[in-house]
């Protein structure tokens, strides 16, 4: 941590202002080299300084530069934040100047890593911060804060305590085999406790998936044949909810058309077929692409035309909908009915054009995702993918234990129980894994 790092701290390309953050022992010296304000070097801590960023005398941008002297900073090091006028070109140019003058480009999550290493935050807080940065709604923010406070880990602690009780009972039986007064942990008793553990882990996983919706939004795919009214529905949904059109440059979500907030939960609306329609009006929907999108979606809005018959493509999609969260939306109820809706499962009849019955779609979504319940529940979810992956491993080990119980003595089975105990410990940072730390920090977005 002897070098000075720099990175763009705000999302690239959006917004009127971008911030470039610099942290490390040379932060003030390096910034002074490219900053017109000569008083900056001797300025007090936590001051904002006005001036220009200069490249060999050329003005690059008019900026405000915040100076913060360590240790009262996020990383506990000397920190500079340059507020520029945004835009990819200007921000990149300034970053480049900083790098030319002795900064190193920060690795993903490196600011947070430094904050952790310098004792500013602990590991669970670090995870929480990452979620906080990415949170888009109040609820998501609340959840991230909960994770930072350790509410999420309480649940795991409890599970682990119960397990420790079972394990120590088995071990006492092993170490003091002749003490008949000590209760014997039998395979039957163990099976009961195991069932309970499995239920709880499953419940946490379900809740975490719900938490996932809170944090990342519900990935909603609108599909249907051309002219069925997908784009109109999209616009209708958006228009009524003052939607924010998200900028998604360079992310994997480049298919998201728009984001809307429904009862504090984000819906990420996806409408790829729309693109195709503009390219070629007569091109039928790409069934295969739609199917792939459906696979990844949390929710499918499948649109049909009230005035048209169901095609074989439609039937293919209907078949694939089984087992997914979906709502069948029958549009254009103002037309004469040609649709055979007897094979449809509880469709919602709307007229997007006349803005009729749109709210019912929203109510259905709320119902499907239990949004009302989510709102009143305590917000203890395991939000990180890592934690959820470990919980799935826990379920695998539970399976091992169950198989073991049938064929092996209890002291063998206990080895898998210990494994479960260790896995749960990993979630709350009570087991050791070096890669865990590296993985964790590399997940942080550059800049925080």
């Amino acid at each position, binding site marked *: 941590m002897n070098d000075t790092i720099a990175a763009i701290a705000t999302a690239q390309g959006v917004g009127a202002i971008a911030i470039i953050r610099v942290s490390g022992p040379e932060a003030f010296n390096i910034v002074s080299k490219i900053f017109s304000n000569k008083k900056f070097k001797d300025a007090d801590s936590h001051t904002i300084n006005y001036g220009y960023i200069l490249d060999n005398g050329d003005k690059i941008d008019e900026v405000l530069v915040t100076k913060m002297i360590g240790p009262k900073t996020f990383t506990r090091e000397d920190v500079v934040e340059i507020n520029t006028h945004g835009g990819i070109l200007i921000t990149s140019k300034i970053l480049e100047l900083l790098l030319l003058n002795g900064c190193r480009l920060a690795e993903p999550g490196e600011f947070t890593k430094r904050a*952790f290493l310098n004792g500013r935050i602990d590991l669970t807080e670090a995870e929480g911060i990452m979620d906080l940065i990415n949170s888009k709604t109040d609820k998501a923010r609340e959840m991230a804060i909960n994770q930072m406070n350790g509410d999420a880990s309480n649940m795991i602690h409890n599970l682990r305590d119960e397990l420790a009780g079972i394990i120590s009972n088995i071990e006492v039986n092993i*170490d003091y085999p002749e*003490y008949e007064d000590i209760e014997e942990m039998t395979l039957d008793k163990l099976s009961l406790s195991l069932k309970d553990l499995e239920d709880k882990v499953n419940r946490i996983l379900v809740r975490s998936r719900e938490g996932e919706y809170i944090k990342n939004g519900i990935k909603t795919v609108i599909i249907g044949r051309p002219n069925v009214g997908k784009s109109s529905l999209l616009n209708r949904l958006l228009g009524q909810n003052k939607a924010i059109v998200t900028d998604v440059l360079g992310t994997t979500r480049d298919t998201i058309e728009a984001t809307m907030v429904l009862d504090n939960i984000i819906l990420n609306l996806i409408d790829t077929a729309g693109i195709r329609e503009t390219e070629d009006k007569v091109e039928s929907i790409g069934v295969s692409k739609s199917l792939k999108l459906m696979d990844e979606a949390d929710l499918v809005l499948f649109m049909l035309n009230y005035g048209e018959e169901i095609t074989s493509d439609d039937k293919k999609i209907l078949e694939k909908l089984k087992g997914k969260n979906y709502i069948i939306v029958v549009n254009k109820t103002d037309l004469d009915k040609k649709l055979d809706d007897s094979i449809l499962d509880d469709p919602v009849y709307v007229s997007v054009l006349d803005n009729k019955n749109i709210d019912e779609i929203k109510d259905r979504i709320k119902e499907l995702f239990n949004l009302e319940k989510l709102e009143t529940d305590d917000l203890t979810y395991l939000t990180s993918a890592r934690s959820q992956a470990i919980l799935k491993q826990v379920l695998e080990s539970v399976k091992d234990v169950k198989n073991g119980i*049938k064929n092996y003595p209890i002291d063998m089975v206990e080895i898998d129980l210990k494994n479960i105990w260790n896995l749960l410990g990993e979630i709350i940072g009570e087991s050791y894994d070096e890669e865990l730390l590296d993985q964790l920090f590399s997940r942080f977005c550059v800049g925080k």
Partner: protein
Amino acid sequence: MDYEIIVVGGGHAGCEACLAAARKGHKTLLITGNINNIADMPCNPSIGGSAKGIVVREIDALGGEMGRNADKSLLQIKMLNFAKGPAVQSLRAQADKITYPKNMLNTLKNTPNLDIKEELVKDVLTENNKVTGVLLENGEIIKAQAVILTTGTYMNADILVGDTRKREGPHGEKPSNYLSDNLEKKGFVLKRLKTGTPPRIDKSSIDFSKTKLEPGDNVYHTFSFDNEPVYNIDKQVPCYLTYTTEETHKIILDNLTKASMYGGLSDIKGVGPRYCPSIEDKVVRFRDKPRHQLFLEPESIYYDDIYLQGFSNSMPHEIQEKMVHSLPGLENAKILKYAYSIEYDAIYPTQLKFSLETKLIENLFTAGQINGTSGYEEAACQGLIAGINASLKLEGKEPLILKRSEAYIGVLIDDLITKGIRDPYRLLTSRAEYRLLLRSDNADLRLKDKAREVGLLDDLSYEKFILKKKQISKAKEEFKEIKLTPKDNDYLSNITTPINEGISLYNILKRPEIKVSDLTCFLKNEYSSEVLNQVMIQTKYEGYIDKALKEVKKMEHYENKKIPEDINYDDMHNLASEAKQKLKEVRPLTVGQAMRISGVNPADISILLMQMKRGK
């Protein structure tokens, strides 16, 4: 006369230490306060027990004496946890308190290169922090290149009964009054520990009809891999089981303040063992428990003392009388020896290296209760390791260090020097994270090669061992090669789940309901039951064993990550202060070791790893 190695103390640690050193050809002197107390069993009359029995097997595999000696001195023997899996099975024997020490003394006397001297040691002599010899209490100086201290409970020993404190060792023996003070002067941090022993009862005064019989096993066992059983299975001496009563608990609670530990004595500093609490502790801590189990164990066929296991206390004699008489079968019991507690000095074990050499003084080794452990087996295995490593040091060779995945002995020593102790350390199965690998049945497979390497396994035993290993792999191959089909075999159609296609004996053996003896008739060659048992365990539990091996591998990554010797923990500002203090005290050699230090949490380890990366 000068010696290469001096062992101070003739208990279980001392015996193994001096035997290992002498057997390795070093001129060795054992100094003991009383020759008649060599290999004495001042507490319970048993060798082995859960985890401890496996240690005895490990001692045997490494060329130590305890197992062989116990085999010669049995009253009864049992395989504990027989109904559970092979990983937790462990032998426990009642050993005769007269025969066991006698046999051990004979072995010592007949070992070349070994002299025994009756005296007390006052100080360890050093030059430039390196051992030069010992100073005896009579003023005599004996020179030596290495010294192994196995002082047991004798350093500044106090016997506590009720409100009395007396400066003496077990059985009224002379304590060692100077040695621990002199060690403290050299810079050692001492710790006061306490242990206790229950009363002994006259056998003829017990009504055994009110107790439950606890016989030995009706199959033969030996601790040693090389011994044939020498006892008669039908002539084993039984133990008996009885319980405390409500009246016992009332007597204890009414008189609690008279117990040394509960106010009878105000100056108790010693910390007693958590895993072997006194009966007062049990009654106080588990008030809702209506009764506690007590075992009546014979001490010897040569005298009548019955050891009342589970009843150790520090009550005055008259209260002990009342307590004992409240027990079923002991209403008219005659107490031959009263229970007492003993307080003694130990050195804090984080001052040791893995070799059991002290960090402060070169060529000074310590083993047994002086290192804060409790139990004969724990002492003996340390004595063996100290004896081996003192010898290897003089030979200019690398020390023998057993890993946690190789032996309970490795677990014990790593725990001691890495975690330190709060109370006398007892080995438990649950302390071993790889217990599936550390079995009673495979102690020889784990350790005999090492015994050979350090020179404690003679040619004949080694050849026998190599043959056994060959037999095991040959048998395993046969099990995999020989395939059976239901057509050519009636047997297969009878086993519970029908098998249709040809299936190897190995896969049949994997079925839980199949015993290895069910399949021996299909083998081409004959194998010993020991070999077949090994094949059975390795086959039936293969999945679990593989898992354990995977865990070992995972940890090895950390165990092999050496921490630079000159690392400066003060420079790591983000370390929790407790972690920093512990790391500075223990100075772990590897990241794996650092992880096991209590008070060092994963975040501290992360910081340590980062620091090490940066240092490169």
